[in-house]
């Protein structure tokens, strides 16, 4: 999976899993497996979001510094 849209792929999978579990048609083993996968995905997504936010904060701070037009 390309790093560029990993978040998007993860989010899409997570949303799919949530929808499936909410529907409740799966058997127990499947449900547990999906739930586990969902938890993993949610951890990854959450981390990616945090990382993105941190990077933005840093970039914004750097951007605050004055510049001159050459």
């Amino acid at each position, binding site marked *: 999976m390309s790093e560029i849209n990993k*978040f998007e792929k993860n*989010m899409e999978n*997570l*949303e799919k899993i*949530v929808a499936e*579990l*909410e529907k*409740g048609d799966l058997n*127990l083993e499947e*449900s*547990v497996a999906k*739930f586990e996968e*969902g*938890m993993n995905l*949610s951890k990854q*997504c*959450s981390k990616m*979001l945090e990382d*993105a*936010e941190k990077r*933005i904060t840093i970039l*914004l701070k750097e*951007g605050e510094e004055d*510049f001159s*037009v*050459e």
Partner: protein
Amino acid sequence: MNYQDLAITVTQLNNYIKEKIANDEFLKEIFIKGEISNFKHHYTGHLYFTLKDENCLVKCIMFKTYAQKLKFEPKDGAKVIIYGNVSVFERDGVYQIYAKIMEEDGIGSLYKEYEELKLKLEQEGLFKVEHKQKIPKLPKIVGVLTSQTGSVIRDIINVGTRRDPKVRIRLYPVPVQGEGAAIKIAEGIRYMNTNKLADVLIIARGGGSIEDLWPFNEEIVAREIYNSQIPIISAVGHETDFTIADFVADLRAPTPSAGAELAIPDREEIKQNINITKNRLKVALNKKIEMEKLRYQKCMASSIFKDPTRLFQDEYYRLDKNIKDLEKYIKNKKQEKESRFIEIIAKLDTLSPLKTLTRGYSLVEKSGKIIKNKKELKKDDIIDIRFSDGKQKVKVI
């Protein structure tokens, strides 16, 4: 003959002459040239003046409707060509010219030349938009072709350095009017190009008559502008003057100051624009993150994650129900057996002799066998008598 009968009035005479002149084909439409004198701009808007040459003069009038369309300010001494008709002003008994169009004399040929060259170059494609170069956004060096003296270069320097204190303005001095000016201007453009002396060129001149601006209408200048690798801004004359140079140049500025504004960007403005763009970037990025966060939170707010046991509730319920059913079954079975047991015991109880014994009856047994008749016993038999509280061995006498 009576002279009195023959005599006409002055009015009749003037009327007659007026009629004569009005019917003359030649006088209906004339072009006449001369010099203006005794010029009066009447408050009604009409123009009154005399047109003269070395020997003669004639009165002229131009009504307001026509005077409004004049492209120049007539004044005493101006050489003009007038188009109009001749008519008689009866009251004063004078004929005069009623001017409809008036142009400065000598200009006509220049206009013709201008129009011809314009058409020729246009057909050749020198004015084509596709050929026009982009004016650089932040030129380091701005070349200016104009007169070394005069207000034009000062204006350009003032405007330019105010907008961008770091810009370098490189003047290539050229005469901007008169014989030979066009050649010098063309040379200047070529020189700046061969030596790559500027990022953008301004060709500038203040306002003036068409003759004054003429160098900028010459083919040699037009071609040099067209061939220039350096983008050129033409800033010649006033807003209303259009020279050939204006049409060929990559950009036309209405005045020299405007030319400086077009060539040299305002540094502060650029800074502001960068800041605005930066802010937009920030806002856009933050918005994106917020959106993804919401999306994520929406997922996580699902009951699946808030209360995962819900996933197994049904299974638990099923399990519980099975256990309960099982218990119930077992209980039922037990109860069934218990009640049967009690029933049997009760039955057993009623049949038991022991109860009878407690009421004072006794049971006789011999060798474990119950004796029901006297005949079964004989003398010296050892028998057991069973009381309610136990047995007693007895000997039969």
